């Protein structure tokens, strides 16, 4: 310890700043001799690494701080990244909770039988990868490569897609299409010839009127959209929220329409009726760009607000008033297309109605509507041989075609794994980063399919329930420990973002690219992986345009030059429909034998004593992917059942009371606590998706809350694109017996 003179000692006692070595011991405390210092928690990194997030699919730019001991202390938003603009949502902030999750998969596991019991045995990577290659090879020999399917979710999935294409199967699927945003995407493609994509090309920040119909933006925490939502509010934009629940966004709305669930299309048609009858649409825009206005007028002539009232429960006058209000904002009156729209099996028609409403506002390509995205042209990777030929996918039942399926249907491949269901049977699965027990409707079918497989492997970070059903489990490194391909989405300004390791992989986990390449090697598919590492892969792509990884060193992001993205910039919109125009009337639908103008079909009514089960999101969670995150769990660690206060009273239920839910088919989940609230209609209940996890290995979340997935035993299939409508399930509440 340094020598201290008497004089220094006195100074320390009388000044706020000074030597800190004295600040110990009760004697000095009581005499006020301890100097007041501003405590520094020391979380600023000695190293700050830019990368992009994987806590959801938005892929925001992050800055990860690493301290002197090599530990990630905090994650901030990357100011240079267009999707985060220096900000993050709670989940992005909570990435450390995934990295340091004590329940992470630590080593490869293989299912073996010991004393008549099936157990997982930890094995070396060599042994595990050999086993995977053997299983895949056997299926290929016995049934053909097409009998093997890949289910994937998350950005690392593309390495396995490459593996599957090389292996020779078309059965590559992601539940985010048929179980989530597929119907919306297809509806916009049918109407505008362009999907809304991900990130969506919604120009929220310039909207004057923003209509949210089935979108709970703010609880649905897509960073950039929420940032724009707030900026729009600041600029005085008005919000129309159509939701059976008083969502966070409804709390900011000029109009909240607590619509009867499943009747959105009736409201949309009545809005069109008013707008067309009163001439409130953008006639010049439609004249120039759209086909089928007269047919639409005739179609909605009898879809009066009075008619819609009987279905939606929204008063006639309110429908008229809101139609006029929505139209008053054009051409910056955005009707948000939503995201998960796999609701009633009539969702493409509903999506078409939303698309048509946007067309009437003259929105596509316009400021405050939908911008026309630019993307950074980074050359594609080349150098692999041509991929082998294969049969078509087995994702539709024998003799059935969903004409506008824009992607392989996940539930379809699941069903094809039950013998005799499809043109040919699926015999093996690779599951990357998606817990199919929660992602797909009808869990019993998924379990039946799993039991019919000859071989299955899961690649995951956490021991999600699906990992308990497969033969081999491979532990992947988290997004903070690995490289992935560059991210170059369409956005107002094109850009490329780099994902790179912030810290080395923990335990024996390995990055996805390595796992895929090693399996490929064992299958004799080396030629399809002509790169040493993901770094080398990216470097090869960049080199073609004279760029290099070093260009990302400073910010992790390369920005393209700013380019126009609005009609107002002088850009002409391009519609990729067969006619090259906006198709209000869809000849494609007509040709496929489907309603060419959106029809309204009333939803099923709940049986007596039952409520329609609605589910959605909370800002701190991305479904089952995050519920085991202890850091995020500090804000929210379970779900509750929203029930109208009066309904709860009628049912004799108290706020906070634990109950079980039983659906129309006798499936049960819970316990879950009642949230008696004014914020929801009396005829439905609501919970946040992702809880009720049955996997015991997820020690933090196991046993917390209820699973909406367990209640989705029925799904209505969308005839246009094959999506699964999952909101046609009803639950009743069962009191917990005193134990």
């Amino acid at each position, binding site marked *: 310890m340094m020598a201290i003179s008497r004089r220094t000692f006195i100074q320390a006692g009388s000044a706020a700043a000074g030597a800190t070595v004295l600040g110990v011991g009760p004697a000095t405390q009581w005499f006020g001799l301890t100097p007041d210092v501003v405590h520094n928690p020391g979380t600023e990194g000695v190293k700050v690494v830019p990368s992009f997030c994987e806590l959801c699919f938005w892929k925001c730019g992050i800055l990860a701080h690493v301290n002197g001991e090599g530990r990630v202390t905090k994650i901030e938003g990357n100011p240079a990244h267009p999707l985060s603009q220096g900000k993050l949502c709670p989940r992005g902030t909570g990435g450390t909770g995934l990295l340091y999750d004590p329940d992470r998969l630590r080593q490869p596991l293989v299912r073996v039988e010991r004393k008549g019991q099936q157990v997982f045995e930890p094995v070396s990577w060599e042994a595990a990868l050999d086993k995977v290659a053997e299983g895949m090879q056997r299926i290929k020999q016995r049934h053909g490569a097409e009998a093997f399917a890949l289910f994937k979710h998350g950005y690392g999935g593309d390495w396995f897609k490459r593996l599957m294409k090389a292996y020779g199967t078309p059965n590559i699927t992601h539940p985010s299409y048929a179980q989530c945003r597929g119907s919306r995407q297809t509806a916009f493609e049918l109407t505008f010839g362009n999907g809304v994509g991900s990130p969506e090309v919604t120009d929220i920040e310039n909207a004057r009127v923003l209509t949210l119909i089935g979108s709970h933006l703010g609880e649905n925490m897509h960073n950039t959209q929420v940032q724009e939502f707030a900026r729009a509010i600041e600029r005085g934009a008005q919000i129309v929220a159509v939701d059976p629940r008083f969502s966070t966004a409804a709390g900011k709305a000029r109009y909240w329409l607590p619509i009867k669930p499943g009747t959105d299309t009736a409201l949309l048609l009545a809005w069109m009726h008013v707008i067309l009858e009163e001439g409130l649409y953008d006639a010049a825009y439609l004249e120039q760009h759209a086909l089928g206005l007269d047919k639409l007028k005739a179609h909605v002539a009898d879809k009066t607000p009075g008619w819609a009232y009987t279905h939606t429960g929204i008063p006639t006058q309110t429908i008229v008033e809101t139609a006029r209000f929505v139209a008053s904002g054009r051409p910056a009156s955005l009707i948000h297309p939503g995201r998960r729209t796999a609701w009633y099996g009539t969702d493409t028609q509903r999506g078409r109605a939303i698309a048509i409403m946007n067309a009437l506002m003259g929105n596509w390509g316009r400021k405050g509507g939908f911008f026309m995205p630019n993307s950074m042209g980074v050359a594609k990777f080349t150098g692999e041989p041509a991929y082998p030929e294969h049969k078509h996918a087995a994702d539709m039942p024998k003799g059935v075609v969903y004409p506008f399926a824009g992607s392989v249907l996940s539930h379809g491949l699941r069903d094809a794994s039950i013998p005799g269901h499809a043109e040919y049977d699926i015999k093996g699965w690779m599951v990357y980063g998606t817990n199919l027990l929660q992602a797909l409707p009808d869990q019993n079918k998924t379990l039946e399919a799993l039991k019919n497989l000859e071989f299955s492997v899961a690649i995951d970070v956490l021991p999600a329930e699906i990992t308990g059903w497969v033969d081999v489990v491979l532990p992947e490194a988290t997004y903070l420990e690995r490289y992935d391909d560059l991210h170059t989405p369409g956005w107002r300004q094109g850009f490329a973002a780099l994902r790179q390791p912030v810290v080395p992989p923990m335990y024996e986990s390995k990055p996805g690219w390595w796992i895929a390449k090693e399996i490929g090697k064992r299958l004799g598919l080396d030629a399809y992986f002509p790169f040493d590492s993901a770094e080398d892969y990216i470097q090869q792509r960049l080199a073609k345009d004279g760029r290099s990884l070093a260009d990302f060193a400073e910010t992790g992001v390369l920005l393209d030059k700013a380019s126009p993205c609005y009609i107002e910039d002088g850009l002409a919109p391009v519609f990729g429909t067969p006619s090259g125009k906006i198709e209000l009337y869809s000849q494609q639908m007509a040709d496929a034998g489907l309603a060419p103008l959106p029809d309204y079909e009333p939803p099923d009514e709940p049986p007596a004593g039952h409520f329609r089960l609605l589910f959605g999101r909370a*800002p701190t969670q991305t479904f089952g992917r995050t519920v085991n995150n202890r850091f995020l769990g500090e804000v929210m660690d379970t779900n509750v059942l929203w029930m109208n206060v009066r309904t709860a009273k009628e049912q004799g239920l108290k706020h906070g009371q634990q109950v079980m839910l039983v659906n129309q088919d006798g499936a049960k989940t819970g316990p879950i606590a009642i949230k008696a609230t004014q914020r929801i209609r009396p005829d439905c209940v609501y919970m946040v998706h992702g809880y009720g996890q049955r996997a015991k290995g997820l020690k933090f979340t196991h046993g917390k809350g209820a699973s909406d997935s367990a209640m989705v035993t029925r799904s209505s299939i969308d005839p246009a694109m094959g999506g699964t409508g999952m909101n046609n399930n009803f639950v009743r509440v069962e009191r917990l017996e005193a134990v």
Partner: protein
Amino acid sequence: MGAPKREKRYAMAMDTKKCVACSACVLACKAENQVPEGFCRDWIVEEVRGAYPNLKAENRSERCNHCSDAPCVDACPTGASHYAEGGVVLVTHDKCTGCKACVASCPYDARYVHPEGYVDKCTFCLHRVKEGKLPACVTVCPTSSLTFGDLNDPESEISKLLASRDHKVLHPEAGTNPNVFFLS
């Protein structure tokens, strides 16, 4: 009594209209300040009034109000709770005995006892502010609902915001002269 007059008066304006109650502020604070498990220095309040279907909502991100007449500073027997730079109310860990007099005196319930024995709460991230950065909650907020700055500077963003927008403080009846303002 009260904070001595200083060159700067640090304050925060919280926009209840823009806030979506996402809790990014809570988690960013916890990460930045190593707030122990089970505790937080800031928190979200979603206040909903009325009866279905006529409802009004207000979202607030709340924290220590860094009052200019802070009861916690008056209540502290050891001088641990004090006014620091810019009027920010801080607790000097080594002076605090964990007696909780401050916890009882705070009308905002902003303080908790840290497992290491001292009382802890929001510091406006003064360690960051001194380095020219904004508090962690302000930095992360996706809706930019939080504005931090110097009220003694009429040109600061926060001074301008408070001059142009309706605002309120929490528990004005407590007479604490809080420095966190809620824009409505």
